[in-house]
């Protein structure tokens, strides 16, 4: 299960302040903490306050790469910023993200191929998030077809069936789980799946419990990766436990510790 650490995001106060003031330390501290907690990728997002998205995203990529060898997940709606940041990556990264809209796919899939990057494909359009699992899977299929046409290896395509908060969109949860199952049957080799876990519990008072319960349910449905708070220890423990129950990692009494010492 690939863990994408979500904390280097300008919407969090400390990072937002650091981004505006061009202070690398909070970003670098967060990078090191997330790496120690077991992250495989680090998501970087300029947040809402950065004036120059291009300059900021590039700067964020550079300062984070000073302290870690982990690959970066570039989280931005400004495609020029994405392209500029891809240029400074020291190892293949991940583009976050591309909706099922032709002009987005035409811009971003060739970039992913050119920079040997993975890319997150969202099962939605500019009109919004579909309701049923079938509609989500249909968008997934379109993303798969485009990826194939552009020569992107399907193991580098991470499809996100879009998780919505359980307190306001409760009927979506089971549709997302079923969509994950269907997405894994779309091709051979199958595309990968990803979700932004924190979305499922937004504005509820039980965030960690809801997040980790959904994580293990989604893993049973075929979830390959998640954007999450790797500092949430019970969450990472639950994921390690799900790996063992799904017979994906061999059990040993210290399995929780070993899960965090993943191979590079």
């Amino acid at each position: 299960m690939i863990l994408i650490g979500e904390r280097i995001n300008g919407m969090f106060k400390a990072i937002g302040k650091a981004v505006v003031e061009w202070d690398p330390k909070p970003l670098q501290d967060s990078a090191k903490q997330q790496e120690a907690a077991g992250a495989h990728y680090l998501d970087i997002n300029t947040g809402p306050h950065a004036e120059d998205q291009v300059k900021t995203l590039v700067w964020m990529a550079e300062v984070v790469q000073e302290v870690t060898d982990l690959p970066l997940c570039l989280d931005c709606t400004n495609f020029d910023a994405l392209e500029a940041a891809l240029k400074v990556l020291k190892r293949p990264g991940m583009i976050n993200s591309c909706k099922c809209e032709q002009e987005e796919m035409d811009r971003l899939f060739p970039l992913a191929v050119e920079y040997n990057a993975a890319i997150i494909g969202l099962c939605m359009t500019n009109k919004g998030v579909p309701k049923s699992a079938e509609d989500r899977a249909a968008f997934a299929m379109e993303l798969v077809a485009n990826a194939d046409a552009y020569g992107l290896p399907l193991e580098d395509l991470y499809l996100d069936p879009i998780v919505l908060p359980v307190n306001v969109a409760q009927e979506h949860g089971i549709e997302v789980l079923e969509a994950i199952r269907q997405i894994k049957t779309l091709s051979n080799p199958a595309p990968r799946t990803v979700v932004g876990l924190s979305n499922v519990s937004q504005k509820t008072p039980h965030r960690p419990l809801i997040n980790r319960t959904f994580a293990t349910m989604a893993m049973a449905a075929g979830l390959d990766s998640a954007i999450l708070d790797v500092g949430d220890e019970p969450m990472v423990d639950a994921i390690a436990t799900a790996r063992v129950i799904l017979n994906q990692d061999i059990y040993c009494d210290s399995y929780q510790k070993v899960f965090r010492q993943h191979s590079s």
Partner: protein
Amino acid sequence: MALQIIKERNSGKINIVTIGAKADGGGTRTSVVTVGGDTCLPFLHFEGQVPNKPVIAMEVQSRIPEQWAEEVKKPFADVLSDPAAWAKKCVEQYGAEIIYLKLSGADPDLENHSPEECVAIVKAVLAAVGVPLIVVGCGDDEKDNQLLPLVAEAAAGENLLIGVAEQDNYKSVVAAAMVHKHNVIALTPCDINICKQLNILITEMGLAADRVVVDPGAGGLGYGIEYTYSILERSRLGAMQGDRMLSTPIIATVGYEAWRAKEANAPEFDFPAWGNQGERGILWEAMTATALLQGGIHILVMRHPEAVALVRKNIEELMVTQAF
């Protein structure tokens, strides 16, 4: 359209372990043995690297093994009472590239050799041969915890492989290996989960992962070998997927397991359909070895020279690369 043959892409690798040290490494060996480094399932050269061939260690005991089958004692009849001479014969006459010395004479219920006597025996064997040495205790925890640290100290610089470390008794031998720079055999009773846990315990003590060789507690042919095979398979698959706690080379006491079997020992007149007992025993040992090789073992501890010759030939053939 050209046929595309799908190859697995493995992300893991079996650790490379070296046993023995020459003068430039602080020892007195004339040769060293290197095992491991596999980046594919056993012998699938077309999917990765098999940089080091499996090696056969010939077994020497620190006491006359009167309980061994006659057929196995015959080739060594003149040297059974002298471990150094026995080891020398294994190397000079039968081409052994590494010696496995079991200090069975230290067993309190047998000769009860003192730790000092054991050290003397180890030193004598080291002086008699130039190949690397594996040294294993008698199996009595209390005795072994006394003698193994002394052996480790006396042989410091020789980069031995010493054993055994088990889940309930590992600290003493691991500490001795750390201080005197040897490698350790980690033994578990045919249980992959305990095997993984023991590797974690050992590496948490501070011994480098590439100084551990795992003994999975192999069962002999007809006596659980297929269960051992399934453990070896799961272990190698885990290693290939990046599980670092299952990425150690593997050792198996083939001779001990095979020659325990009724099928290797029963006289022909008791079981005429089983044929000549001598040949049968040799084949039982050779087939145990070759079956375990398919599961992926790196060091085979064997007894009968003719079985050793058969398995050596099998290893040569398996190491011919079919890469494409």
